[in-house]
């Protein structure tokens, strides 16, 4: 599987490459699978978490071994190392490091959160505790300084969104997952923003929600995503203490002029900065769920 350009599952070309990989499951078994990232010149957190999820899910490979060919762009390869992507890969994954290319990525970035696994509530609670401190460190707000109100609200929104994204994985996926977050400056405007991404290889939103909303078990996955996001449905039924996750995400996007992109199985949902929700259905089912959130920040 060859990926070019920017490593993110959201771009249509990359999504097609991932779809081809997933569709490969169940076909004739082969001895080796190559993930060729040599042509990648930029890596987003969403690419990190989705690719790592695929690499950590041997049952979808339809082969014994995987070779991961790293980007020739040195900046990209360095980032993969700094972001923790190369640590703890399954033993079946072999790293192929090509000759270096001194061209670094054209974006400047700060790591809010390197690639981090989410497997337990304790890990999540520890993570949430660290995020607040990390935000203050990164964005130059010392702990002694009283935060101004707009920044205090933005920070609360960011931390809450991360907490809910991770908690969704633990509560609903039936499997652990990954999270990563970076701060960037937009090329055209220079405006700072965060990309936060989570991914898991769990049961998917439809399977989870259908435990209590049985009729949704037969609905198209894109329609299920829309119902869950718009109505705040929860697999805990009518329990008023549950179903806060996507409401917090929507509120965070309003607070921080942001957007999010969600894929689960064959369903895709986009919550843009402006305009209505958009959904789409793909014939190839992604093995699990991933969510990419972008929020303006200082």
């Amino acid at each position: 599987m060859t990926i070019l350009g920017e490593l993110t599952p959201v771009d249509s070309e990359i999504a097609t490459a991932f779809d081809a990989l997933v569709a490969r499951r169940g076909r004739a078994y082969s001895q080796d699978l190559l993930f060729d990232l040599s042509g990648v010149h930029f890596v987003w957190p969403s690419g990190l978490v989705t690719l790592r999820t695929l690499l950590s899910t041997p049952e979808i490979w339809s082969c014994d071994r995987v070779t991961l060919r790293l980007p020739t762009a040195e900046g990209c390869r360095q980032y993969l190392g700094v972001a923790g992507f190369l640590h703890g890969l399954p033993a079946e994954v072999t790293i192929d490091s090509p000759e270096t290319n001194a061209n670094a990525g054209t974006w400047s970035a700060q790591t809010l959160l390197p690639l981090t696994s989410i497997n337990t509530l304790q890990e999540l609670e520890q993570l949430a505790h660290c995020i607040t401190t990390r935000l203050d460190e990164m964005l130059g707000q010392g702990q002694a300084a009283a935060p101004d109100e707009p920044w205090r609200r933005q920070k609360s929104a960011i931390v809450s969104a991360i907490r809910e994204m991770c908690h969704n994985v633990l509560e609903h996926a039936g499997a652990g997952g990954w999270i990563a977050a970076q701060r960037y400056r937009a090329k055209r405007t220079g405006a700072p923003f965060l990309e936060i991404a989570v991914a898991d290889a769990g049961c998917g939103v439809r399977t989870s929600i259908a435990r209590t909303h049985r009729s949704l078990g037969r609905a198209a996955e894109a329609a299920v995503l829309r119902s869950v996001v718009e109505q705040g449905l929860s697999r805990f039924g009518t329990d008023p203490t549950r179903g806060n996750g996507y409401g917090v995400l929507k509120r965070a996007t309003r607070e921080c002029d942001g957007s999010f992109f969600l894929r689960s199985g064959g369903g895709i949902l986009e919550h843009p900065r402006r305009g209505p929700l958009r959904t789409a259905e793909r014939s190839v089912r992604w093995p699990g769920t991933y969510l990419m959130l972008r929020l303006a920040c200082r």
Partner: protein
Amino acid sequence: MRAPDAAVLCNPDHASIRGARADILERLQRAGSGTVVPVSLEGIELSASCHAALFGPVLEAIVRGSYPGRFVVAVDPGARNEWDADAAMRKYSETVGEKLVCVWDRTDRCVLVGSVDTQVRATYDFVTEIWQRTGEGATARELADMFQLTIQAASNRLTKAAGLGIVYSADVESVMGGGRQNRYVPVQ
């Protein structure tokens, strides 16, 4: 609320949440009229679901009249929980079909979180301002004069705010020309 080992709680079923909720309800049950029960969140951050589990049933019981004349205030130094609590209370309100509001003491000031509309917020802010300035409660006449309302409309707003548990009638006094009026003070 007693903080468990972690400073952040994400599990609404955690024993600390259940215990704290039970403790608040018991204190409300035992308290006399005019009592404000503080709920300290110092040193702890709760997820939205935890706020919903902790405050939702308590505020619901207050709004439905289970504890007349008794109130809660969340004490949240640094306002680390305000954003999540507001999100949680709004969602909870939508789900149960009752407007739920909580007074939130951030140390620098008290704000309202939850299903708050502009009118409710303005009423609370007015009552607070009068009380801080004069040491006395605000009347419907004063609210009517401030916002150019009829006495009845102003009285309705104060009654509504009292029903939400954010102001209470601390005094009843006679008025010139006959009749009586309530003086409302903010829950803080």
